[in-house]
């Protein structure tokens, strides 16, 4: 097979920051090619250049032998290159159909196309890519994250005539079967796919070759069949990965948080106890009420009825601020960092100390050096390199943004951490730092409730695991008999055997 995309010495600088410093690689027609690398290795920049969002400073790209220099997303699409972005690029208050067809929704030249006809065309696109559970006239803002991600992917699929770029396409997808089926259909037509994911098992399943990036440069392109995971990690980080984390035993500490017959959103009568020294995992398929539970405990959402008892006293937790101040303190790290947590154009240091200053000072001036020092201490606990503290958060990679959010949560001095998918879409290195921080946190008398869309993560981290189904606890699994199969089965409801694959088979 011939080379479809040839990239030579591609470089991109932002001022003094080198985002990409010499990437050379090639993708063959009909191939699924993985890009592997740690946070900040330059994957996102490469994606942006290929899809026309930013222009490179140096280097060349050839697509089918012709220079590929897209000046915009639209131009890249015209050349047959389309992208599904990690931070989804959908307009919340428009319909699925309009989002699929943007920016040219209406086909009429002199008169706007009828809504019914637009919906019909969108329905055809959805049907073509085997999406049966999302209506074309549904509003994007009403859809759960997983469905939005599939719409983002579908839009890219529908435009990909030469190269499809998928940036963390499964970050919110609990199951890959739909995506992999569509990828295979596409590659059969000779379309190439650039696949960026932190999930190595996925990469091995769908990709043939991989290019490893480190510090903005391409290290090597390998046949995945010929290299083991350890070898890949070594290329990614430049040294051997950290040893797997140690086992934690069952905790018998004080009860820090308790819910009694809690009703909130889709949660119906939940009883939950969090003790000092334990990490309680929450496993659930999408839409079982986990968001509601976490938001209620974080003080973002008001409970309908029932009791939340913090530190032995019933606590109303009206706002995140109140939740923080209710001794021994609750810190909540939400699901969508882009929307819910981060101030893009403030520095990492300011973002980290923000919650602390917000809760303690009233109208006092902020001492910049004090801010840096305090932020640095917290950053150290999540292994955030101090050189990032002065950066605007918007310029950091997703993994480092997540570290900033976690550092901020630690900064509050809270003893109860409520983490919603803390390691979603971050690389192995960051994952290990986050896991180490979590272990360290509970070892010092804290407690953690965390939800994860990855079963392996739950099995690896949880002292015990609570499985939600239909707003209720369908099972509680102790450390001793925790396996992915057991969690998966419980997540499908109390009395149903045998377990079916995680997602619908649409």
């Amino acid at each position, binding site marked *: 097979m011939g080379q479809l995309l040839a990239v030579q010495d591609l470089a991109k600088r932002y001022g003094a920051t080198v985002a990409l410093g010499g990437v050379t690689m090639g993708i063959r027609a009909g191939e699924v090619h993985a890009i592997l690398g740690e946070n900040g290795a330059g994957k996102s920049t490469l994606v942006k250049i290929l899809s026309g969002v930013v222009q490179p400073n140096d280097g060349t790209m050839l697509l089918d032998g012709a220079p590929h220099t897209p000046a915009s997303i639209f131009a890249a*699409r015209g050349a047959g290159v389309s992208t599904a*972005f990690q*931070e989804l690029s*959908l307009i919340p208050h*428009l319909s699925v159909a309009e989002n699929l067809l*943007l920016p040219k929704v209406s086909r009429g030249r002199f008169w*706007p196309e009828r809504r019914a006809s637009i919906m019909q065309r969108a329905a055809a696109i959805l049907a073509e890519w085997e999406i049966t559970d999302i209506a074309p006239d549904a509003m994007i803002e009403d859809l759960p994250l997983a469905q939005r991600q599939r719409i983002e992917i579908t839009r890219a699929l529908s435009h990909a005539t030469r190269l499809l770029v998928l940036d963390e396409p499964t970050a919110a997808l609990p199951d890959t079967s739909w995506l992999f089926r569509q990828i295979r259909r596409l590659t059969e037509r000779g379309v190439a796919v650039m696949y960026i994911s932190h999930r190595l098992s996925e990469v091995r399943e769908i990709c043939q070759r991989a290019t490893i990036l480190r510090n903005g440069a391409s290290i090597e392109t390998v046949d995945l069949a010929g290299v083991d995971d350890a070898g890949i990690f070594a290329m990614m980080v430049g040294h051997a990965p950290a040893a797997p984390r140690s086992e934690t035993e069952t905790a018998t500490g004080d009860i820090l948080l308790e819910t009694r017959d809690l009703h909130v959103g889709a949660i119906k009568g939940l009883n939950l106890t969090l003790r000092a020294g334990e990490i309680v995992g929450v496993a659930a398929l999408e839409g079982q009420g986990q968001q*509601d539970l976490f*938001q209620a405990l974080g003080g973002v*959402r008001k409970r309908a009825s029932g009791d939340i008892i913090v530190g032995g006293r019933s606590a109303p937790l009206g706002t995140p601020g109140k939740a923080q101040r209710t001794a021994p303190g609750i810190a909540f790290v939400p699901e969508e960092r882009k929307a819910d947590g981060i101030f893009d154009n403030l520095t990492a240091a300011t973002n980290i100390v923000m919650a602390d200053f917000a809760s303690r000072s009233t109208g006092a001036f902020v001492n910049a050096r004090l801010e840096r020092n305090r932020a640095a201490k917290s950053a150290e606990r999540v292994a955030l390199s101090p050189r990032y503290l002065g950066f605007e958060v918007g310029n950091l990679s997703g993994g480092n943004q997540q570290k900033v959010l976690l550092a901020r949560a630690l900064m509050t001095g809270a003893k109860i951490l409520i983490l919603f998918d803390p390691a979603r879409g971050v690389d192995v290195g960051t994952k290990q730092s986050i896991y180490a921080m979590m272990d360290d946190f509970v070892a010092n008398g804290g407690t953690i409730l965390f939800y994860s869309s990855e079963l392996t993560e739950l099995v690896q981290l949880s002292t015990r695991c609570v499985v939600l189904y239909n707003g209720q606890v369908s099972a509680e699994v102790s450390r001793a008999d925790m396996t992915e199969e057991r969690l998966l089965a419980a997540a499908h409801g109390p009395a149903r055997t045998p377990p079916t694959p995680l997602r619908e088979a649409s």
Partner: protein
Amino acid sequence: MTDATHPSVAETRAARRVTLRHIADSAFLIIVIYLVMAVVYVAVQPSALSAYSIESLFNNSLPLMLAAAGATFVILQGGFDLSVAGTISLVNVVIATTPMEGPGGALALLALAVALGMAVGAINGIIVAYLRIQAIAATLATMIICQGIALLILKAPGGMVSDFMVYELTASLTDRVPYALVIAALGVVFWTIYSRTDAGRNLLAVGQDRKAAALSGINVQRTEFFSFVWAGAFYALAAYMLAAQTSTGNPSAGEPFLLLTFAAVALGGTAFGGGRGGVTASLFGAATLMLMQKVLFAMGVSSFYTGVIQGMIMITAVLFSAAVHHAASNRRGA
């Protein structure tokens, strides 16, 4: 998904949400408020239904309605445009100092006015969209410049507006329907079509999320640029109708429009952050604002209080529309 056991409940809830959202997104609320205000007006001022009274009400309201319609284009994409006052003053004095008689002359003047308004809008658009200068600073500057040029053209109120514009354009179609109302209705029709075109949809998309819009392939800069051009065109129309209504030119004619325009847009329910609302809502918002003045006057409220009462009614209306929005988008339960 989770509601599999109670599909009917879920469906009803979804259906209710859809209707609420339609209400929140359309100009429905402000139209209702306008109609209520109209009923009150007729009740306190029975002569309000006379042909003369209706005609003068619409003639008085139309310039503000058009100005608010123009500002809406910019606000919908998340921008801000202060140049409304300067543009109206400038176009107003240009019309008053360019005497052209008859319907032909009126048409030529209309073309001149709109071209001038669009030119000012294009300058705003270039500065804001392409040179990336903050919209408030840029449009404040163009406002001051336009006002200065207006004073250079006409030192004091005066000038001449053709009889055709003064008498015919402010009259009524077959002595029943004021032309001002016809023009306002054309504005509604225009927006109804425009908002369904790609350009209209992109305007709302950019206002909701610039970054996502850009990643969706929308040319954000072009969208911003044209929002200012459309705004300029509508400001010019406002100035044109103002000249016809006042039969004179005034180099500071635009000044009262500055704050009232934004008040009218807010009353109509268009979000100042961008992304939600529409021109129709702003047309009704402006009409409601003008009608409110009439009602308060008819009720004999001292003019010292009208400002206070107007402000309170505005806050109530905006709160009410916010409440409906909240109910419509309260989606986290699903």
